[in-house]
């Protein structure tokens, strides 16, 4: 099925109207040597029934982490949260799913109002003044924030906490590779960066004196180990050099419980919006968040929705400050971004509206309580210990007496996915496991996890004995 409704007799009538005898004649300027003289080498067309059978078989070959029969403790930047039914029902309306970018305001008031609500919600979550209408994902949003900081300050050095998610650090390296900028990583102690090491890193570029060439300082909290960084102290230190911008990389759920980036002195907040009502779906499409102080508004990347009025004075919305954008400004645009993650921003808007302030706080609190309960249970299993002592949100690193891989493999038969191998993720060694616990996990599942840990160390002892 190619979804073409024109019939053969209609086609002939249309060709008559144009004044040609066959469709091929319309490709006059395509020279024969450039035409494909055979069908594409692709599998034959599938009917809808065959297509669904094939896809179902494909889906059945997978073993999803988020599944009623599986206890998944996987995090590392993507989290299994509860998604209320209203999110799918409302964001799934075809008037949203199949709509174009709302350039034509009069034909797009629904999307524009929803995105205006989204921008407002993200401002409130982050404690900042302006938010854009989304970017691709958390990693590219961070890269965009850093490029924004380079652009605003005219400086070249970017200080990045080494506790930032490795994907984000890698994307930053890619984005800055061909630009006059370089990244310096701030080392961590006990799972967090300290004000002292930040100050040292800032000064290192300039013969010991605090350098004025630092465009921005980027700190993620909760960081990749789940530890909560002291944004207030770190950003105060960053601001000791006038003009340096503080970039907070957020988890939007944690924003409902912890002090907001704005309250901690951040100039820009970015993050991965996936926890806000977006399924894991193997890593995408997700949602890049970016908010900033108002003075940075005109340097922001991406679409912005503004409130205005129509010819009768009624409140209306439209895309605004478009002279920042590529379709107007070309090579001088603040970013090349065009297509964003509109439908995911809509999901987040509906999710946040459904949860409300108390509901979102409750999600964040339950994540914290369950993660701390799990950490205490696992720490008590002989041979295991927590890697870091400081405060954490819903994720933590466990030192195992056996390779993390052995614990993961032991979980297979019991349908427990106990966490991520820190060695494989590039954030620790092969005996460390990164465990995430959301509100979706139950006390019984946490008991099961503790039992699995115990069992995994025993299995290893006996196999060593052989």
């Amino acid at each position, binding site marked *: 099925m190619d979804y073409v409704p024109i019939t053969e007799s209609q086609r002939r009538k249309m060709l008559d109207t144009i004044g040609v005898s066959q469709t091929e004649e319309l490709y006059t300027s395509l020279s024969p040597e450039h035409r494909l003289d055979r069908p594409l080498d692709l599998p034959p067309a599938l009917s809808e029934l065959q297509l669904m059978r094939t896809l179902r078989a494909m889906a059945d070959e997978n073993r999803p982490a988020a599944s009623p029969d599986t206890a998944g403790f996987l995090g590392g930047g993507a989290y299994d949260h509860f998604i209320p039914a209203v999110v799918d029902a409302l964001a799934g309306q075809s008037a949203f799913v199949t709509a174009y970018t709302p350039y034509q305001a009069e034909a797009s008031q629904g999307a524009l109002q929803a995105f205006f609500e989204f921008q407002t919600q993200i401002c409130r979550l982050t404690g900042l003044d302006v938010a854009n209408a989304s970017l691709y994902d958390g990693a590219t949003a961070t890269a965009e924030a850093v490029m924004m900081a380079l652009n605003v300050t005219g400086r070249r050095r970017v200080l990045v906490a080494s506790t930032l998610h490795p994907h984000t650090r890698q994307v930053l390296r890619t984005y800055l590779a061909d630009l006059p900028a370089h990244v310096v990583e701030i080392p961590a102690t006990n799972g967090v960066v300290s004000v002292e090491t930040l100050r040292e890193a800032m000064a290192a570029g300039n013969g010991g004196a605090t350098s004025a060439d630092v465009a921005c300082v980027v700190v993620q909290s909760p960081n990749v180990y789940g530890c909560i960084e002291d944004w207030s102290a770190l950003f105060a230190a960053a601001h000791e050099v006038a003009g340096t911008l503080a970039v907070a990389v957020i988890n939007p759920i944690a924003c409902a*419980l912890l002090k907001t980036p704005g309250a901690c002195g951040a100039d820009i907040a970015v993050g991965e919006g996936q926890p806000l009502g977006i399924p894991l779906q193997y890593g995408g499409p997700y949602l890049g968040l970016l908010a900033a102080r108002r003075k940075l508004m005109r340097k922001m990347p991406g679409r912005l929705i503004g409130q205005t009025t129509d010819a009768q004075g009624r409140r209306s919305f439209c895309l605004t400050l478009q002279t920042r954008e590529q379709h107007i400004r070309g090579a001088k645009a603040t970013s090349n971004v065009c297509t964003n993650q509109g439908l995911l921003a809509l999901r987040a808007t509906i999710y946040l509206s459904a949860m409300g302030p108390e509901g979102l706080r409750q999600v964040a609190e339950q994540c914290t309580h369950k993660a701390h309960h799990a950490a205490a249970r696992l720490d008590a299993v002989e041979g295991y210990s927590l890697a870091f002592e400081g405060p954490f949100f819903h994720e933590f690193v466990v030192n195992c007496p056996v390779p993390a891989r052995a614990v*993961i493999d032991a979980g297979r038969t019991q349908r427990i996915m106990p966490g991520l191998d820190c060695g494989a993720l590039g954030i620790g060694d092969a005996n460390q496991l990164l465990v995430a616990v959301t509100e979706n996990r139950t006390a019984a599942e946490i008991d099961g996890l503790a039992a699995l840990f115990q069992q995994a160390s025993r299995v290893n002892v006996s196999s060593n004995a052989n």
Partner: protein
Amino acid sequence: MKADSDRNPIPDDAGGAESPPLIFERSTPGARATDLPSLDVPESVLPAHLVADEPPALPQIGQVDLVRHYTRLAERNFSVDANFYPLGSCTMKYNPKVNEQAAAMPGFTGLHPLQDDADVQGALRMLYELRLALAEIAGLDEVCLQPAAGAHGEYTALRVIRAWFQDPEGGNQPRRNTIVAPDTAHGTNPASCTMCGAGVVTVPSSADGLVDLDALRDLVDDTTVAMMITNPNTSGLFDGSIGRIAEILHDAGALLYLDGANMNAIVGVARPGDFGVDAMHYNTHKTFSTPHGCGGPGAGPIAVRDFLSPYLPVPQVQVREATKGVEYYLDHDRPKSIGKVRSFFGQFGVLLRCWAYISACGPEGLRHVAQTAVLNANYLAAGLRDRYETPFFDPGRRRFCAHEFIAVPQRLLDHGVSLIDIAKRLIDFGIHPPTMHWPVHNCLMIEPTETESLATLDRFVEVMLRIADEIEADAAHVRAAPHNAPVRRVDEVAAARNPVLAHEDVE
């Protein structure tokens, strides 16, 4: 019904004339739309200095009011499911329902991106098959599925090309630093060049709307990285000189990049690799029917020639022999790779829909798609050209368009209307306006796509001719459009002059 001017209008809840309240204005303290199970573990306490006193000021709303709010907003939106979108260069084709059903299967939505490859064999198989299909459609050797959108694909491919030039074992000409783009290029092209640290040189178009070959020869030299070309171009013309353009670039040691925005005109009919292209991106939300979702998500896979493939982002989906048949895996071990361009692997849910579309169409279907897209565009051009001049479409002289065309309705504009007025009047008829003032001033760029019925195409022509009549009879009526939309003309100038980008509660 007009609001009584003596009273304050009642905020509208059910589709009347007033704008609906914001979700924040519907907030009722204590109201909840959903709930959570009660806590089944002991409480723990975080250090007080880290914790916020108050939760964020989100709306508090009951479930039915939440549902009505976003249902009401959906009613105030055009969409392909309800409206015709002859939007040039955006390829707003129909989005098949079966693809949505497929992407919603728990076996796909529940996959964590860092799960073991062994747990996601179905997902990786789909990605691998899509990789092969997109390489075949492009006529190129290797595909990277990761870019999140077309612009992201442009950026990724340019970085790959530059990495090849910078590699002593590759192109080994690190000083090449300029990229050529036609004056009709999408804005993303020059913006992507800037993001990868390259300068942009613009090549003008000739009078017939194609690349000026003499000008191109003068511009291309040993500093040129590549030319970015859209073909068919943004005027809706297939540039028959593409072979010579490729030659000019290649003779100078530079590469040819295709912006694949207009692949819908040639998919299955011609392959970029066969007409000299070295690298390109697709827009799956154009050519392969993945929904636009009010502006995203998209996906922008790129296809490249063999010599560029070592530089593609990590990871790459691969297949290898295993004890039982084959196994699919993500290959992170790519020493020459430019690195990561995004978190995790890509827009999986979008790529799945893309795979489903290609599988449903098959090879004959894809060719039929392109041929019908071109047929429909030419049919509309033939129907409109008497009133809306089509500078590059003239069947008498065997000059046809590809899947889209531009119209410059100068005689109508001389009646004192602007293109915007025509566009807003179309909204009254339930038709989304075409692209305007691009690639040249005062043009409408019209792309019907292949998924529209003859009745829809005929109605569009009828409406356009009616608007032409209206302009000649009563231009003021058209200037005041829209008359039947949820709002009248929106004041975009005021929005930019005094930006209000977030709602502030008024006590």
